């Protein structure tokens, strides 16, 4: 099966510091590829490269067989690469429903219409309701996002990514700051919807990673030190050394 998204020898240098160095990985539909490593390993930079928010210094990115290196976040989103952020990045002063509406509307080709009210386009609300139900936040529709609990805001964060109906889902620490119960809810959700997406998951919660991942890539100081099936990686001497040597921060 062909990879939906593929990174080839990606490198990102920030004036002297090499944050990501020659990283290659790929992901197919229905697969969850987890990227782990200690803080500062370059995981978030990798996500930012794949989502178009940073431009790689070297290497290339291929989505659906098309080279898309250097494309910005807007184009990447339209090509079907959706993402969530490590630090919640939603519309705090809007309601949950309005948050989702903006995301759903981005796929409907109605956004340049000035005169009909938004609610005269029922597809928008139908799409929002569907994604809110998936994340079990449908009862919160009319609550202002800034008034939600942290865990609920994290769910809205993921809802925005899902609402753009992506082929590739880049999840940057989706469980960050969530309680155990909320975390297991998200893990369940990801298991449920995994068949529809190629998921690249950056996460510190190892229980979640081993419950979800089909493939694991371990990064350290910007480089890939191990990549493969979870149990192979788990028994890898280099990985154990990296984690025990550097210490796991979370």
């Amino acid at each position: 099966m062909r990879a939906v998204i593929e990174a080839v020898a990606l490198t990102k240098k920030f004036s002297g510091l090499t944050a990501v160095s020659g990283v290659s990985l790929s992901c197919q539909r229905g697969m969850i590829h987890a990227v782990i490593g200690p803080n500062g390993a370059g995981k978030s930079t990798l996500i930012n490269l794949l989502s178009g928010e940073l431009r790689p210094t070297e290497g290339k990115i291929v989505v659906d067989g098309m080279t898309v290196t250097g494309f910005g976040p807007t184009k990447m989103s339209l090509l079907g690469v959706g993402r969530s952020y490590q630090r919640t990045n939603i519309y705090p002063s809007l309601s949950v429903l309005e948050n989702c509406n903006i995301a759903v509307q981005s796929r409907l080709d109605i956004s340049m219409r000035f005169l009909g009210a938004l609610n005269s386009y029922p597809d928008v609300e139908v799409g929002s309701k569907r994604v809110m139900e998936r994340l079990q936040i449908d009862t919160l529709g009319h609550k202002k996002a800034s008034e939600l609990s942290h865990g609920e805001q994290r769910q809205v964060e993921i809802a925005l990514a899902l609402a753009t109906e992506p082929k590739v889902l880049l999840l940057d620490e989706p469980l960050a700051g969530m309680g155990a119960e909320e975390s297991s809810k998200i893990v369940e959700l990801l298991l449920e919807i995994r068949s529809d997406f190629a998921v690249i998951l950056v996460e510190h919660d190892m229980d979640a990673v081993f419950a979800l991942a089909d493939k694991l890539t371990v990064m350290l100081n910007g480089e890939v030190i191990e990549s493969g099936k979870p149990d192979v990686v788990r028994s890898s001497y280099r990985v154990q050394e990296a984690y025990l040597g550097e210490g796991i921060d979370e």
Partner: protein
Amino acid sequence: MGAILRKAFPGLILLTLVLFPLVGDRFYIQFASKILLMIIFVSSLNLLVGFTGLVSLGHAAFFGFSGYVLALLSPPDSAMNFFIALLASILTVGALGAIFGALVLRTKGIFFIMSTLALGEMLFYFLHDTNLAGGSDGMYINTRPNLSFFDWWQLDLANVVHFYYLVLILVCAVLLVIRKIIYSPFGRVLAGIRINEHRTKALGYNTYKFKLVCFVIASMIAAISGFLAAVQFGVVNPEMVGWHVSGHALMMVILGGKGTLLGPVLGTTALMLVEEGFQMVTKHWQLLTGGVIVLVALFFPNGLVGLKFLKKRP
């Protein structure tokens, strides 16, 4: 009771405005027209500042230039057709808005403010220092445009009552259009840009394009207002495009409450009434006006809309 009042409030205001020329004297009708046409301008600026989060200090460029288009089109001793002249002004200013917008929207934050200010001042000095449009004296519009519907009904724009009703109709039309825009799919994207442009980009919106379209719409609405101002006074001068006019309008947006439909209406009316009132009492009126603005800023940080029951932000 409150709910009924809230519902009836816009209707009551409108009724008062419709009946006003029957009782008001000539000076006050003229002054009311001035406020109404200013509301159009301030509302157009609010579309940028309040609804999209783009603080412009050069919006008067579109207001003043629209008047210049009318002055330049008007033959020296006969009347221009009102609709053709208005359409020409709106389209010309829209083109200018597209050029200005394409440039300034490449910047953000404080740099956006500075570049709008710079372009506005460039236009000011262009009109002031060249003789293409009367230089620093500006231009007169000797004969006001002719507004008739197929010769069976004609408005006399030199008649203050006729002019007042024309402006009133246009204010209502503009406010309705802006209301439509902010609740439309396009308007929701503008809200997204105002609140979190980063995420809006990541959701697949080309935010530059949306901001540019909004900028052009705002400039075209400002053109309606500048056109009316030129018709009312029969004269245009470079001051109309200067930053003073932009700054004054920005003050009205903030005083009234940015990002609300009603804010510009309240802000414009309040500031112009206060200024006029103080001018009658003292020549130090600006000092007093400043005091009022400080008080409003202190007690109603969200503007005058915070003062009353009508408060809605989409």
